[in-house]
């Protein structure tokens, strides 16, 4: 395991430039090198026909057990509708203080909510979601500062309200890990 490395694994097509942008943001926030790679798994195994969604708990377990060994932190990037048994949907999930997380672009698109397509907003939201889930893997809990990326968000409007950056307090907590 490389202790200085974060890996973004795309499960599905995202576009090279799009992923590079995400990687750059992650690098700026955590000051660690970021790798991008593609991952392959049969998503139908995680599909719940009753809910017509994909089981986030099982997907996270799969990423954690099969894809995270070579990296300090790993995040799986998806483009499917995720759920956990208790909630109707999630944007992403991570193991607190763990190695892995997942994030999905599916519910971050404007058109899902009857609004005009806006790729810039979508990309910004996804960056925030990826940084947020990775923050959990570094042990960060939800932050009360409204602009901090670690602020809990249950709607895209909540995501739009916050920045892509960690607040000073959260950043210092991450820095403490590397002392």
């Amino acid at each position, binding site marked *: 395991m490389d202790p200085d490395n974060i890996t973004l694994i795309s499960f599905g097509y995202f576009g090279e430039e799009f992923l590079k942008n995400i990687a750059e943001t992650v690098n700026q926030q955590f000051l660690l090198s970021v790798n991008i790679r593609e991952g392959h798994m049969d998503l139908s195994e995680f599909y719940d026909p009753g809910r017509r969604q994909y089981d986030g708990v099982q997907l996270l377990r799969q990423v954690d057990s099969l894809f995270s060994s070579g990296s300090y932190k790993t995040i799986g990037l998806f483009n499917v509708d995720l*759920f956990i*048994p*208790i909630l109707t*949907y999630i944007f992403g999930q*991570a*193991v*607190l203080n763990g190695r892995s997380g997942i994030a999905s672009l599916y519910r971050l698109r404007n058109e899902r909510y009857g609004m005009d397509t806006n790729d810039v907003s979508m990309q910004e939201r996804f960056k925030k979601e990826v940084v947020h889930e990775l923050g*959990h893997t570094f042990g960060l809990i939800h932050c009360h500062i409204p602009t901090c990326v670690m602020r809990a968000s*249950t*709607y895209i409007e909540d995501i739009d309200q916050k920045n892509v950056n960690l607040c000073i307090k959260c950043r210092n907590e991450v820095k403490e890990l590397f002392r």
Partner: protein
Amino acid sequence: MAKKISILIVDDEESVRDSLFSWFIEDGYRVECAENARKALSMIESDSFDIILADIKMPGMDGLEMLRRIKLLKKDSIVIVMTAFATVDTAVQALKDGAFDYITKPFDPDDLSHLIRNASKQISLAEENENLKKQVISLENVEDLIGKSEPMKKVLRDIESVALTNSSVVITGESGTGKELVARAIHSNSPRRFFPLVSVHCGALTESLLESELFGHEKGAFTGAMYNRKGRFEMADNGTIFLDEIATISMKMQIDLLRVLESKNFVRVGGNKEISSDFRVICATNRDLKGMVEKGAFREDLFYRLNVVNIFVPPLRDRVEDIPLLVDYFIKKYCTSMNRPPVTIDPAALKRIEEFNFPGNVRELENMIERAIVVGNGKKISLKDLPLEKSIITNSFESLEDLEKTHILQILNKYGWNISRAAKALKVDRVTLYNKITKYGLKPSD
């Protein structure tokens, strides 16, 4: 730093426990899980949880039964029940059994966050309420009853022993000794302290007014009764009623009062509906109630009904050692309320205060100190700030004649036995002054 809220998740499905665990842990809560009701109950017995999220449908004991048992164990626990099989009946039953809320799986993430935020708010309100209650208790305790003398220690002991009971109390003592403070201290240390202490000054009201004041009246009961009005007994429900100057009430009122004390039921003036009220009675008087009973001026049955416990508040002259403490207390009290820097008292002035008779007891001392702070130089209370010169300054005077004799002698000495000047100062003629000198046998050497 705010206390970390703890959550217990009770669900037989591992995936539900895991996902709730991850969700809440990311929010910074302390989270624990139990896979069945029995384990949850034993965890609740040994640990304290602020919020319990419980599934209804579980093998063995179901969530509703667990909810009932939790409420028996810890009445104030916040329990949120969750189910995938929602019916109105179970929801109603859960809420009737004391659930904080009812939620159907799967929940919207925002609903879950709101629910937990509301529950957290409820917890902090309950804590705030508890803290405020503690503050009220500390404000309303016996701090106003100042004194370390043996007679005051006995009063404090009596208050402590009677406060937790429901017995009627008669507080006796001279005017100005602090009988109302004793009544307040009894009330504020009793289980009734979160309900009102209603005071009635019986001596200040005529019989008909007192009747209306105590029992209330219906609209039109008498001229001027424009509205229905609650009486003091009704207002004191669950609390305490303090009847000051009880010895002044008429014979008719004594009969009415006895009836109310025995049944705790009464009818408003001009009404016919019986009203019941649960109150405790504390009375105060500066008269000798027992003596009044013997003379037939106070009903014996009412006396025994009221005088279950008697607390005697001693006059200030019988607890002279408390005077410095009281002076210090009133100085602090009035300097604070007048927004003035703290003042001290000249030892000579304090000595004169200690020698003073204080027929008006603590109330008189309090007024004296308040006045001295107002008229004084703002640094030290001296003899000239105290209205003692014009008053009886020792308790050795038995009669007016003694007082007159001493005063005339003081004035004669002041003017070097110049009869004309002394008579002018005393505003009497020379003949009268000569007669007084002869009567009291006064001589220049006295």
